[in-house]
């Protein structure tokens, strides 16, 4: 397994964590978030600053990072309670732009040069890199998936599903829209923050442009492609969208075009996602299993 493959694998794992977070907000709770990369960035910058200027270790900083990202998620989730769908979509895009601008222009965040020299993660005295970093990321991904799984089985998760399906009916059954929308937001943004922290310590150099709107679109595409609201969808989406550019790498010049064209075709013909209800993959699988739908 070459070093390059491991790098790609690690990035896929990290992006899958962020995508899982978005899936909680968009897939489980049915809210709109087109600026999720902002929280990815907040997590990255928070961890970077706490470990460089703050002198903390990755592990000590981690709870703080999750707390900060969740808190910001809480504040930015509040507008979602008052805005109609269309406005909300554009507000979340605007928030993404603002956060990136803050990272880019406020000197505290390193400005256009970003933050560099981020230390490696130390675990049991070892500085993590290469395969061990991949395993660490995979471990965090597994933990994230476990939390998502537990969430879907909890009353909180069920409340979010109900809100997604019909907010008016859900509230008449005791589900407070404010409480549970915010719960989904905080959980989803904290997961993005986790991904961000890992990203910062993996790349060891971050800059504002890594976390802009194109990244948000990428993450959303992973969730939609994989199957919104499913457990493994975000992971599958991250895998597919992470591997595609590599598959096309030999075609250098046509790479971006093929990537975009394929994304277009996939969304056009499988808008429910690869793992969604009625998707080709699901139907083929159930036919193979003997027709149980």
């Amino acid at each position, binding site marked *: 397994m070459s070093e390059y493959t491991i790098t790609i694998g690690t990035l896929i794992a990290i992006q899958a964590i962020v995508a899982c977070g978005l899936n909680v907000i968009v897939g489980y709770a049915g809210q709109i978030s087109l600026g999720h990369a902002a929280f990815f960035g907040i997590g990255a910058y928070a961890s970077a600053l706490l470990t460089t200027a703050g002198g903390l270790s990755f592990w000590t900083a981690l709870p703080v990072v999750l707390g900060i990202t969740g808190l910001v998620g809480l504040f930015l989730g509040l507008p979602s309670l008052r805005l109609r769908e269309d406005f909300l979509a554009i507000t979340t895009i605007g928030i993404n732009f603002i956060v990136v601008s803050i990272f880019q222009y406020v000197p505290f965040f390193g400005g256009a040069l970003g933050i560099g020299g981020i230390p490696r993660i130390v675990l049991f005295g070892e500085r993590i890199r290469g395969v061990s970093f991949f395993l660490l990321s995979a471990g965090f991904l597994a933990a994230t998936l476990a939390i998502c799984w537990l969430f879907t089985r909890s*009353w909180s998760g069920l409340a979010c*599903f109900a809100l997604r*399906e019909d907010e*008016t*009916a859900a509230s*008449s*059954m*005791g589900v407070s829209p404010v409480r*549970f929308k915010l719960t989904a937001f905080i959980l989803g943004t904290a997961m993005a923050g986790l991904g961000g922290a890992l990203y910062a310590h993996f790349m060891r150099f971050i800059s504002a442009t890594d976390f802009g709107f194109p990244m948000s679109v990428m993450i959303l595409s992973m969730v939609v492609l994989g199957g919104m609201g499913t457990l493994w969808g975000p992971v599958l989406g991250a895998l597919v969208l992470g591997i595609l550019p590599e598959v096309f790498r030999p075609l250098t010049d046509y790479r971006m075009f093929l990537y975009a064209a394929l994304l277009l075709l996939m969304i056009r013909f499988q808008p429910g996602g690869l793992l969604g209800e009625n998707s080709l993959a699901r139907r083929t699988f159930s036919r193979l299993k003997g027709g149980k739908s």
Partner: protein
Amino acid sequence: MDEPLLSLREISMHFGGLKALDRVSFDLHEGEILGLIGPNGAGKTTCFNTVSGVYRPTSGEIRFRGKRTDGLPPHRMAALGIGRTFQIVRPFPNLTVLENVIVASGLTCYGRLIPSCRSWKGRKTREEASEILARVGLESQAGQKAGLLPLGNLRRLELARALALKPHLLLLDESFSGLRHEEIAQQEELVRKTRESGISILLIEHNMRVAMGLCDRLVVLDHGRKLAEGKPEAIRNNPEVIRAYLGRGGSANAS
């Protein structure tokens, strides 16, 4: 029990210049089935919405079980013991019928942190929900996706979900509309059985035969005002009520 279960005092609901409700007052006593009737646009659903918390009344007081509740949001009203069905059914389409009911049975957990982390997939929860489905006759559809059900079954599902809240008061908003003849009889039976189990009922109904036959008392609204109140026979013969309906081309159907 002297104090009424639900009491509305001078409830007004203004939407800008429009007076949807104008100083409406009435009481509902424990154990009774009270019908809210009136021509189209009289303000019946608006009235429901103030009771269940969807609207905050512009003025007036609502008391439920002795506590003042006007202006409280719907999820708090549910916790206080009011369940409702909707005029246009609102199932959770991608959840199964059983899951739709289970959502309602989580009422006691949604308000608190630790309970809301517990699992809803336990056997006891499923059994309780299945029992409610059996009560409304939907147990065979438990695994079906709610979005695929025909209207008659959806109306029963609405009722099942409201019952799962273990409410003191059930608000039924036109739960007979769109039903076929046989379904109407079944629904009437369900409503009666629900009252027998100790739940008081406030219902909106356009079908006069159903309303007259099912309700202990009726409140008639017209143009946002209370026109009359009393037992079905009295209402049936009340000249003002007749004028209110006939004056609009007679929307009361006898069948």
